[in-house]
């Protein structure tokens, strides 16, 4: 099938493009490309016309200096499920770049020496009318001293559906890593019909400085006792039912004085003042598995829209 544009877009190192198109009720992947170290795998269309794409990096992780730029177009009446294979591991700052590398993007080459070793993932998603995007990756794990930034921007039509999962774990338990990353910065910005309705910015840093050292708080201290934090943004026709279920469940919770924290906590808030904007769910769990199970159960009603087999691929 020919590409949807007359000229093939130039791709920088770590760049990628996915376009899911449809015509006469049939969906197909019209654009699909990635350059090292980004890797896009196994595009396929299931029976329910849901396209599944795995987004990975060579080596299974990101090292200092990596810059990933992914552009995703989910055209009218199509559904795209984006997954990863295992947690995105972020290694610590390294001064040198990868040995096998094509022309680096403007961003990477313009960085100052101090910044050059940080890792950046920049993703732009366009989700058209009656289309749906299910972004259900595994969590990010920042190893000791890692510095990671992720910027995800979603342009959605009024009747598009978005399920955006963004989560992070505390490190490699086997090495005793408990929130010892240097910096984690993640932005999820949602625009509906061109208007910004949500901009969730999370910044976790281990560099707090207070002249009175007794008052310094490490990241581990202020995030304790949880090892995994997740944010889910839900909006659109295909998740209306899920949102109603969540709202009912949330409304039924009643907290009495506790001696110690629960193993898992979650909160629900609306986005803006218009119901159509959707909701934000935040989850924190003492173990990643707990959060994964919670998410899997909570989002189960997606099965009716993408099928049981397809849903099973998420939260493996």
């Amino acid at each position, binding site marked *: 099938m020919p590409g949807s544009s007359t000229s093939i877009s130039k791709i920088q190192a770590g760049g990628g493009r996915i376009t899911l198109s449809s015509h006469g009720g049939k969906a197909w992947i019209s654009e699909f490309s990635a350059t090292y170290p980004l890797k896009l795998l196994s595009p396929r269309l299931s029976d329910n016309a849901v396209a599944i794409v795995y987004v990975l990096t060579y080596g299974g992780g990101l090292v200092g200096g990596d810059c990933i730029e992914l552009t995703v177009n989910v055209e009218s009446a199509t559904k795209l499920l984006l997954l990863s294979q295992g947690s995105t591991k972020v290694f610590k700052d390294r001064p040198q770049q990868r040995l096998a590398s094509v022309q680096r993007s403007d961003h990477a080459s313009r960085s100052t020496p101090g*910044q050059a070793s940080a890792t950046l993932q920049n993703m732009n998603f366009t989700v058209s009318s009656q289309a749906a995007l299910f972004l259900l990756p595994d969590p990010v794990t920042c190893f000791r001293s890692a510095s990671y930034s992720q910027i995800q921007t979603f342009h959605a039509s009024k009747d598009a559906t978005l399920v955006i999962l963004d989560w992070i774990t505390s490190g490699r338990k086997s090495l005793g890593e408990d929130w010892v990353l240097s910096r984690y910065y993640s932005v999820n910005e949602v625009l509906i019909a061109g208007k910004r309705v*949500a901009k969730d910015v*999370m910044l976790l840093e281990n560099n707090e400085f207070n002249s009175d050292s007794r008052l310094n708080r490490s990241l581990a201290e202020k995030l304790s006792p949880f090892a995994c934090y997740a944010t889910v943004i839900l909006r659109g026709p295909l998740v209306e039912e899920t949102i109603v279920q969540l709202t009912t469940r949330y409304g039924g919770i*009643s*907290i009495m004085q506790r*001696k110690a924290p629960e193993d898992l*906590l979650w909160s629900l808030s609306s986005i803006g003042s218009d119901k159509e904007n959707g909701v934000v769910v*935040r*989850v924190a769990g003492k173990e990643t598995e707990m959060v994964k199970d919670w998410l899997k159960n909570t989002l189960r009603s997606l099965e009716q829209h993408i099928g049981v087999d397809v849903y099973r691929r998420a939260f493996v």
Partner: protein
Amino acid sequence: MDDETFLLLLLSDSNLPTGSFVASSGFESYIKHGFGGDQNNRTIMFMRDSINAYARSALAFVSDTHRIVQDVHRDVEQGSEQKSDFDKYLQKIKEVDDLYDAMTLNDVTKRASKSQGVALLTLYSKGLTPPLAFTGVKNRKEIEIEVNSYMASLVAQYKSLVRAESAPGHLPICWGILTGALGLTLERSQYLHIFLHARSLLSASVRLNEIGPYNAQQTLLHISRSVIEAAVVRCKDLRTGIPSSTGTESDQPDGVDDKSRGPANTWPLGEILAARHDLQHSRIFNS
């Protein structure tokens, strides 16, 4: 005593009707959910995390709103033509306000922020503008009168927007409007805002029976101070990314700068607990 000091004394009054009395900034929920261990250190631990988190998420909005109101001051004082374009200023403030709303994805926090925000605008209109029938003891300069009347209109019009639900009217923005309208410097405005957040927290702690009233003052004087100062120093130069009308400083031309210069949520645990405030079976605070 100079004007600024008098203003500071006035704005620090605990009897100031700002609606902060009913807000615990998530502390009540924190305790109810079993966090903080034993009572001895709970208040200090929560205070540290809360002040740092609040400063990082809100101070840029105070600053940018304050700057917009400073622009109004300047335009009026210089007799610039721009001064008659109220809508422009209102729209700029609304832009900052809308961004704070989009970045604060927490129903409880938003609710508390809006109620305190509108209380500050009301405070200005009803409590801090010169009384109508009173010309004043001092011989006020004409330009001062003009600025004051301008500010009164600006605040009144913004409040109408909020009442009509065209603008959210969030606390950091309204604080920027209030202090900008009163002519308080940016530095003082930033510092006082975080100080008041700390003090409100300690007051909530006393009412929650966590610490006694004397202990609260001790904490405020000897412990909170360095936390407040560190937080203000760290966050005073943050910008929201919405360019001011002067456009003379670099206003984050590209996304790369956002990472170190923009507002952010730095305490996800605090976020969850604050949002869960309403789930408490019984509670004495609104947020």
